[in-house]
């Protein structure tokens, strides 16, 4: 199944806590993003609610439980479950985070960054190829937001992503909020990041809204990816660039907190649609500088 036109399809990440509301408002979305782990671990009723949507609306598959970056072999039994779910959803792609969340004996449940080195990239490349051999739809890697950096990192975010994607033909699920937060927290230019990505590599986009965090032990406030508030305009400005340069298949609004703020969620969907419409009308392309290679 391909995502419904217009392209990109605009939708939200399905959350069972607001499943009824989502089903009641299905006409407002072109697609839904399904977290495969919810199908695996939430029990048959939740999975059935999701699978019942097959045929009603296109769905793409997203994972949070692989921990691809943990320095141990991939959990092939988990991947096989994912493959089954991807097939049942008729999902056009499967995405996961370029991150690790656990190590033997500990599970943080938070996405943590990897050392950005060629050696680590080599390990991830081998794992991506393994994923691609077991799941018969395009695999997309997602950029995470991160608070700390490994001291041995020798590559920039975009160099690390490009190396892995180039060697594996994996696409990107670009989270523009994560890019915005990382650029702010770590002091790099997000537009340069976007310009350094090969055109067309971004297949799906995440947008979300976070919070500013003040703690007495921080030298300055940091931005955190809480998926709890409206998408900031700065992140939507990055979306504009992505739309022009990469023509992604889908833009997904993620929301995991303050889920009952339905007006905010719907307003964000409309704001995203407005950005898409502006790009499609050509007005944005004419007024926004993009890289010469576009």
């Amino acid at each position, binding site marked *: 199944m391909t995502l419904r036109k217009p392209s990109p399809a605009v939708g939200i990440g399905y959350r069972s806590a607001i499943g009824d509301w989502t089903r009641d408002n299905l006409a407002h979305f072109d697609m839904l993003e399904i977290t495969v782990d919810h199908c695996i671990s939430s029990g048959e009723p939740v999975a059935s609610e999701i699978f019942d949507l097959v045929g009603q609306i296109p769905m793409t598959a997203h994972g949070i439980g692989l921990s691809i970056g943990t320095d141990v072999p991939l959990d092939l039994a988990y991947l096989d479950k994912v493959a089954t779910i991807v097939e049942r959803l008729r999902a056009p792609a499967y995405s996961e985070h370029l991150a690790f969340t656990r*190590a033997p004996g500990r599970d943080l449940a938070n996405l943590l960054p990897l050392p950005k080195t060629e*050696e680590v990239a080599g390990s991830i490349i081998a794992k991506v190829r393994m994923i691609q051999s077991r799941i018969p739809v395009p695999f997309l890697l997602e950029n995470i937001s991160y*608070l*700390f950096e490994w001291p*041995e990192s020798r590559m920039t975010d975009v160099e690390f992503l490009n190396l892995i994607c180039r060697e594996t033909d994996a696409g990107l699920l670009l989270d523009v909020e994560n890019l915005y937060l990382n650029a702010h927290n770590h002091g790099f230019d997000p537009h340069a990041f976007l310009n350094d990505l090969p055109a067309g590599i971004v297949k799906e986009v995440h947008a979300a809204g976070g919070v500013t965090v003040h*703690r007495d032990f*921080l030298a300055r406030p*940091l931005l955190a990816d809480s998926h709890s508030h409206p998408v900031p305009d700065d992140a939507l400005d990055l979306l504009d660039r992505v739309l022009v340069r990469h023509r992604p298949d889908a833009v997904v609004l993620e929301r995991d907190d303050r889920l009952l703020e339905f007006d905010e969620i719907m307003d964000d969907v409309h704001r995203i649609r407005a950005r898409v419409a502006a790009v499609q009308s050509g007005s944005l392309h004419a007024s926004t500088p993009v890289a010469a290679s576009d």
Partner: protein
Amino acid sequence: MPARLLQRQISLLEYLTSAGAIFGDGVDVPPVPSLQGFDLAPLRLEACFSHEKRMEKIIAAFARTFELLGDNQATVVRDFVAACPSVDIRRIENARQFYDFACARWETTPPQPPYLRDVASCELAIATTRIKHKARPSQPVATAHTMRFRRNRDAVFLPCTYDIRPIFEGRVTDAPERRDVMLAILIPPDNDQPAIFEVPASVYGLLAELGTWTDRAALGPMEGLDELISDLADHGLLEVTSEAGH
């Protein structure tokens, strides 16, 4: 990746789940050599985020327990973090981890108030019941009296020293009545919220016998048995089927 990276990932996660990183006890220097070179302030923030997320899951399951802990909350949480790092992301596993920790603590330090253990046990039972219900919602109860029946496998039977039901029913009360009571926690048919019932000893005795599908006839003649079975089925304590071969 060299094996060294896994060791560093383990060290990093040990640090991020430690009381030192979460509460800021002596975090000015890297706790282990393998964390040399990391900026510790953002690591602390990561640790705090993860801890807050984990405690949200636990407090959601033990809302009344935490309320009753009162001023002891902070100490209990600190000791819990030091003793029980996060090993699983699931809500129920974190709830069980906290419950086991609390019970072990109450072995040496009697809980205050004294009915706290019963309240915590009941809250864990409610959380467990919800999970089971999500995984396999209870079947509508068949009517009639010719059926086979068995004890509801998803019901949790909890012997308590205090009748703590008023705490869960929002009834204003000074303190729960101290008396031995068997409570059953389950989600009744046609409902999606857990309920707590008192089960008299004689009824519990009957339910204990009904672990497998049983014919009515196997129980022999007993005055009022059909009404009791019907009542237990209505409350969801018994699963009833008219089909053979289960």
